[in-house]
């Protein structure tokens, strides 16, 4: 038995940045302050998770526009709805598990049914904590995709988050955003001209051998995997689909059809059930687009506790595991290998 050192549990404040990746601290909080300086209608509300959703930055800048609603997520959503009814733009923050599992009815009826202008900012989406199923929102997108009127955003990095805040302010309607908090990776800077837009998927890397369509932190992994594959002589394209609903059908279909022989991988920090992968699979099938299609996502099970790097390897969403998955299907001589 080797004496490999065991990694420690990744807590709520763990950074999901890989070693060497540049980061920005609390991009949401700072971007919200900047937006709020221009727009007095913005208020911040939280359910006892201000510090854990980077809303404390807003609290410091605008203490009289900050509402601590207590550890009561149902109330948070109802009160957010009430604030929006009075003409304000509330940014309400909690964890993804609590927004999706505990507060669903209140988001559905009090907010979405009436298209109220509430922005639900939820931290710890998917597998971004080692605390186990109580805090791992592995099915939040599946839960919310069925809710009419709700826009779902899964930003990739600090750049996405910063730009999405102003985009949400400019957009009239309810939004659910899967927040990366704390020291957030900053990777989209390298793509000149990249601009986050609600409802738009963007090609980041062109590649003729395979295509990864991804959202959230998996876009970071997809970019890293594409870089590594390139060194091996394989060109892997990456399309970032930051808005999961409504899906940018047109751009996705166009990208898939550009190289119809490429295998398509959908990578998401979410269960393989009910998320971006199944959403795109359904689109391709409805449009009669037949391609080799595989999902890179979390298994349909309650996940384990521990250190994030260990868990991301275990469940197949680390960069190394993404590369391994790609290699199963694509080789440098451009042959598509037999599949599982």
């Amino acid at each position: 038995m080797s004496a490999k050192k065991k990694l420690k549990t990744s807590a709520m404040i763990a950074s999901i940045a890989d070693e060497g990746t540049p980061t920005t601290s609390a991009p949401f909080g700072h971007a919200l302050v900047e937006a709020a300086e221009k727009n007095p209608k913005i208020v911040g509300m939280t359910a006892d998770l201000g510090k854990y959703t980077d809303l404390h930055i807003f609290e410091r800048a605008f203490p009289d526009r900050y509402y601590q609603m207590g550890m009561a997520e149902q109330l948070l959503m109802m009160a957010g709805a009430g604030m929006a009814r009075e003409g304000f733009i509330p940014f309400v923050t909690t964890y993804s598990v609590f927004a999706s599992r505990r507060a669903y009815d209140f988001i559905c009826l009090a907010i979405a049914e009436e298209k109220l202008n509430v922005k639900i900012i939820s931290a710890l989406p998917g597998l971004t904590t080692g605390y186990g199923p109580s805090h791992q929102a592995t099915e939040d997108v599946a839960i919310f995709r069925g809710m009419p009127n709700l826009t779902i955003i899964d930003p990739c990095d600090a750049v996405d988050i910063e730009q999405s805040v102003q985009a949400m302010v400019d957009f009239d309607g309810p939004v659910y955003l899967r927040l990366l908090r704390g020291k957030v990776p900053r990777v989209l800077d390298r793509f000149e001209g990249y601009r986050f837009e609600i409802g738009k998927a963007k090609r980041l890397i062109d590649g003729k051998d395979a295509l990864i369509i991804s959202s959230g932190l998996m876009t970071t992994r997809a970019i890293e995997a594409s870089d590594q594959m390139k060194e091996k002589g394989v060109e892997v394209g990456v399309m970032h689909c930051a808005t999961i609903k409504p899906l940018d059908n047109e751009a996705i279909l166009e990208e898939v059809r550009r190289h119809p022989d490429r295998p398509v991988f959908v990578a998401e920090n979410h269960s393989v059930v009910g998320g971006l992968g199944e959403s795109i699979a359904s689109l391709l099938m409805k449009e009669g687009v037949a391609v080799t299609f595989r999902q890179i996502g979390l298994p349909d099970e309650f996940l384990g506790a521990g250190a994030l790097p260990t868990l991301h390897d275990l469940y197949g969403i680390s960069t190394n595991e993404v590369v391994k998955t790609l290699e199963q299907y694509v080789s440098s001589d451009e042959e598509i290998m037999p599949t599982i």
Partner: protein
Amino acid sequence: MSETATASKSGAVEALRQRAYKIRRHALRMGEVQGQGYVGQALGVADVLAVSYFRALRLDPKNPEWEERDRFLLSIGHYAIALYAALIEAGVIAEEEIEDYGSDDSILPMSGMAGYTPGMEITGGSLGHGLGIGVGMALGLKRKESASRIFNLLSDGELNEGSTWEAVASAAHWKLDNLIAIVDVNDQQADDKSSTVLNYEPIADKWTAFGWETYRVNGNDLEALIDAFDSAMESSSDKPRVIICDTLMGRGVPFLETRDKTHFIRVDEDEWSVALKQLDEVYGVQ
């Protein structure tokens, strides 16, 4: 109380009595159109609505979205028939809409929704939402330095929902003196009597313990309701206020008052005209 004040109050009571009669009548007519409806609740809460709409609330019937209005939130969507009756009586909704109540394309669906009906502020029906929305609106009104108030009509059954109590605690925490909750206690829920399904008595003590200014009255006694509403509105306390109203389902129609109580009181096809006739007799209208 001076003689003038007594005379003035007795005049107010008589005027509100007429409003309550008309609210009951509008509700029964809607029930007749549909052959069903929550008329037991509507008849029970008619006096509370008369005092709310014709004594307490500031509103402009011709402009239901008037920014300075008081907001009346109906959590209990199934009481929509009662609120429609009050809105018709207030002139917010045209009386002829009664003929379409609950029918396809009607602006008066059987469960109240904000998108359908003028004067219906929120979508109710999933119980336990209204008071929390009211908390957010009351906070928003304070931000705007508005003098408008929030009224929220809940039922005793709605007190079963834990989310209601999150809102009760929050309103007291934020000192929302612009929020008035009205609880219709008719001791009846879907399956059984409220006290049997999940006993919340002593209800008033619970609200008081949470930090509310609490009133409990016979919700079918107009004089008592006037006193409670007036006190709640005139109070200089920084607490939110709750007026707990004990009401009798079917009030004003003797055969419905004594019929076995259920969530959905049965009224047979040939009984609607009898109900209207009995109501008229109770109010001395021939």
